[in-house]
């Protein structure tokens, strides 16, 4: 398991160091716990089924995005192009409906995401470029594509059936939450119980060792990028359906926030550590933070500040936890 826990246990195993190692590993849970305690004394409507379900509903798009990204980060990469894929696939799923039935338009939008993921994988895995900068460039490119497609205006969807996918519910549970849970289960199964998932952990842990152990490293890591692209496209079409519009602005900071959220949960940039449940918790921190700040009616500029501070604090802790494992400093 993680190196911090082993070290903490070997060095005295006092209550303090045990607590320290728990906080280091479960940063997201600690953050969620703090928020829940604060809200218990706030006297707001936080602990109502309606609010909690609403929070889950509004976070589910980010959660769906995060599952694919987790795969790439566990494999030792990262995917910053998801913001671009999100907006372009959302716009495509609406625009293509003018020419074809809704189902086909959605399928093509998701196929588009898969293709972008394929290109990302080719450049960063097959050609061995730095994934974060290549996917950053891809995100920039796709944002331009989205603006060109819509002339930077929101595109309304005209099909009521399309809107119902993102806004309907099944016996009170919103469709988005159901889709998110299905994606969660799929990704969890993939990472925990399939050879592909276990291989991704091995590749993230040590690329060369994995290669010499006979794992098809290039193909496996490439597939992680493809899945991430497909997941982002799925989230894009769901977002368009939920808002009933496609627009080029929604992707602006999404990519960085989602990647941060994954790391917040405990999936490390070092690769090979983490998992789907951790990512879900990490993104929930951001979802809950939004909800809590709105409940406490904090001014929007202070909300930006708080979010930034949370990002810095948690990434800082993540780097700090790995400091001792490194050869230097």
């Amino acid at each position: 398991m993680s190196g911090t826990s082993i070290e903490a246990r070997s060095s005295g195993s006092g209550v303090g160091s045990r607590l320290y190692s728990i906080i280091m590993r479960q940063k997201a849970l600690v953050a969620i716990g703090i928020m829940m305690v604060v809200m218990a004394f706030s006297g707001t409507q936080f602990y109502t089924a309606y609010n909690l379900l609403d929070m889950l509903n509004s976070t589910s798009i980010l959660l769906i995005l995060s599952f694919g990204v987790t795969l790439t980060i566990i494999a030792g990469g990262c995917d910053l192009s998801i913001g671009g894929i999100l907006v372009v696939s959302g716009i495509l799923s609406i625009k293509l409906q003018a020419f074809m039935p809704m189902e086909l338009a959605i399928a093509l939008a998701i196929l588009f995401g898969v293709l972008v993921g394929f290109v990302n994988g080719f450049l960063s895995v097959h050609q061995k470029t730095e994934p974060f900068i290549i996917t950053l460039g891809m995100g920039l490119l796709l944002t331009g594509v989205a603006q060109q497609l819509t002339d930077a205006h929101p595109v309304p969807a005209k099909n009521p059936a399309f809107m119902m996918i993102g806004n309907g519910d099944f016996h009170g549970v919103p469709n988005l939450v159901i889709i998110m849970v299905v994606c969660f289960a799929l990704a969890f199964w993939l990472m925990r119980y399939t050879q592909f998932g276990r291989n991704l952990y091995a590749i993230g842990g040590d690329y060369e060792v994995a290669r010499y152990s006979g794992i098809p490293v290039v193909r496996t890591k490439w597939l992680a990028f493809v899945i991430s692209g497909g997941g982002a496209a799925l989230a894009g079409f769901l977002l368009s359906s939920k808002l009933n519009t496609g627009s080029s602005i929604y992707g602006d900071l999404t990519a960085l926030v989602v990647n941060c959220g994954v790391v917040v949960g405990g999936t490390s940039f070092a690769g090979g550590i983490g998992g789907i449940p951790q990512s879900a918790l990490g993104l929930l921190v951001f979802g809950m933070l939004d909800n809590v700040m709105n409940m406490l009616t904090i001014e929007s500029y202070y909300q930006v500040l708080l979010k930034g501070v949370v990002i810095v604090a948690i990434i800082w802790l993540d780097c700090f936890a790995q400091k001792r494992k490194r050869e230097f400093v």
Partner: protein
Amino acid sequence: MAEIALRMGKNPVARAAEVLFRDYLVLVMIAVLVAITAIVEPKFLTERNLTNIIRQFGPLMMVSLGMTFVILGNFIDLSVAGIMNLVAVVAISLIGPWGQVPALLMGLAIGAGCGALNAAAILTSGALTQAEALFLTFGMSTVFSAFALLYSGGVTQHFWETKASKAMFETIGSGTVVGPISASFVIFLVVLVILWVFQTKTTEGRAISLTGGNKTAARLSGIRIKRSIFVIYVVCGLMTALGAIILFSRTTTATPVLGAGFETNAILAVVVGGTTLRGGKGSVLRTVMGVLLLILMSNCLDLIGVSTYLQVVTKGAILILAIWLDNRKQV
């Protein structure tokens, strides 16, 4: 095929051509771009357009020159957008109550301070990879932008709102020295010489390149890499502040979202110029070429009538292509 034939020949001309194509592709691209645009659109070579280009490149050039040091040190800085926002709103608001020179100095100090904060976050957490620095500085950028929003209340500030003298900022923004040579161009030349000497002729500058090349090796050879990391972020913050000041002096307004997009453009300019993202190799002169290419390209595309959105697509494609080519060169 022509490349291979050239390499076989090995006469001096062929070797020079090979070096030109491999190491100075950006110069070739600038020449081709200028030639094609001058033929397609005669307005390109008019004096008015050329002055326009010189005016345009000030802010991006300053930010990119600062970013060069960060990338040379094998790190990355996404916080330049946040720093620009903060510096612009604070500096412009201080012109009235403090006077223009203190306002300028305060702007620069804030830039350096923000850079020092970035360095502190990176050094204390022991972040060593670009990806970690990317997310840390992204978080810092959000914090700086939030402070800019809080300080200004989200309001756009204009030069004409203050009655105090702002002649210096007006000179920086739109003044000329000799003929078409603007004041911001002179500032650029001075800064470039200083940074070039710093990078190539001083111990500290050399230490940055060595740190970027291989941190462990640099540390073992007695280079204080923590100091180098601190220096690169402070230089980047300072140059970003200068870029922000030139930008709001030219537009005579400062909004708390003024710097949006500068971080990707600066990284793009540095990488296109030929400074490698792997750190250690590159120079401020290369960045000048990279910025020149970007500004010329957007000017050409504007003249030809390509939409701003497609220009974003082109930028993304060039970024991907530049990194890919750079990577193939290493293999």
